[in-house]
């Protein structure tokens, strides 16, 4: 009855979609956070946007991408990035910014330059916060990646939507159950890594 190949394929597409968006977002968000550390205007504008966009439903974000970029895989990645990049930025930025003054002061005292302070003081201190942001974003990416099937990105969501259109509950479940398993695995594994990082730093 159940075609495992179709499910595995969909799982692969889903993971590829969610994780490529996550990786691109991390690559963009972290340099942006470092830049904002030295530019107060950039920081306040991005933080304002981060707080505003947080409130907008994912479905609306996914929908708004369609008139801008059309449908398919690329708009879907763009929608996920749009959804997760600002929380990532916010966590990284606040983590880097809120290093206790005493550490920065002693680092300057022993003659470290800006770059070394960033590398040896700020980043290690910000690591738990950055990782918390990545965990949060991974969960959201996983969730939005299901939704983007609506705009033709394929993956597990497609099985769900195909099942929905002709009210075929078993088909809906073949999409939904792997999605739940992925979500739980994601949360458990990230929590374990998070625990080790928080212990270390």
């Amino acid at each position: 009855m159940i075609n495992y190949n179709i499910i595995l394929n969909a799982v692969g597409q889903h993971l590829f979609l969610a994780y490529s968006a996550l990786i691109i977002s991390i690559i963009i968000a972290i340099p942006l956070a470092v830049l904002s550390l030295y530019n107060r205007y950039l920081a306040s504008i991005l933080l304002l946007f981060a707080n505003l966009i947080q409130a907008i439903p994912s479905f609306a974000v996914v929908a708004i991408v369609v008139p801008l970029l059309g449908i398919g895989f690329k708009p879907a990645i763009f929608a996920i990035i749009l959804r997760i990049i600002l929380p990532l930025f916010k966590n990284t930025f606040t983590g880097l910014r809120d290093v206790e003054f005493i550490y920065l002061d002693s680092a300057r005292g022993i003659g470290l330059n800006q770059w070394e302070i960033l590398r040896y003081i700020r980043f290690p201190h910000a690591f738990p916060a950055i990782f918390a942001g990545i965990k949060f974003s991974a969960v959201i990416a996983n969730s939005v990646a299901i939704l983007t099937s609506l705009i033709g990105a394929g993956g597990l969501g497609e099985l769900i939507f195909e099942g929905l259109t002709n009210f075929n509950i078993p088909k809906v479940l073949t999409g939904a159950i792997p999605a739940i398993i992925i979500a739980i695995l994601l949360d458990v594994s990230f929590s374990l890594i998070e625990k080790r990082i928080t212990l270390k730093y």
Partner: protein
Amino acid sequence: MIAQVWKTQQLTIKTVEHLSMVFMALLFIIIIGVTIGVFLYNKKNLSDIVLNILNVIETIPELVLLVILMPFFGIGFKPTLVASILYSILPVARNTYVGLTQVDRQYLESARAMGLSEREILWNIRIPLALPMIAAGIRIAIVFTMGVVTLGGLIAAGGLGGPIQTGIHLYDKDIILVTGLWIGILAVLVDSIGSWVERYLNRRYGYD
């Protein structure tokens, strides 16, 4: 363009529908969430298990939670309501629990010194001091509920999700743009009301 879409998609009615669903879901969420929070405060050894279970529910994609409920609740408003509740209980319950347990020692000590019973301390000291935390939890719940109710449009729950689905199916950019932006604006407005209430409670009951 805006006026036309607004009229053909009946966005005024849809908005009223949308907000009333959010409001109703929030009523349930606040009642259930605060009750769970107070319950966990009374039974602290259960708090880890219960909060972890709620945490797992929260990692499940919104849409998947919605469709998983369909075999039990059918389509439309009911599964949407249940999904919103399941999804948003965690922030309210967790914040209530944390708010109640993390009251400063000095307040508790002076209350005990005045001879207040534990029940009186809960109602007169802990709950008022926990209000800003609870409000922060409710604010997160509002954001989640807006998201789930919007998705409810996909399973015929009404509200503003419906026009978006129509727009995507017809590939009508005007409908998508107008409805999508309107949902965005609405969400930001509702959230800023929430943040205003939160700030008020912080001034009234906050520690600093």
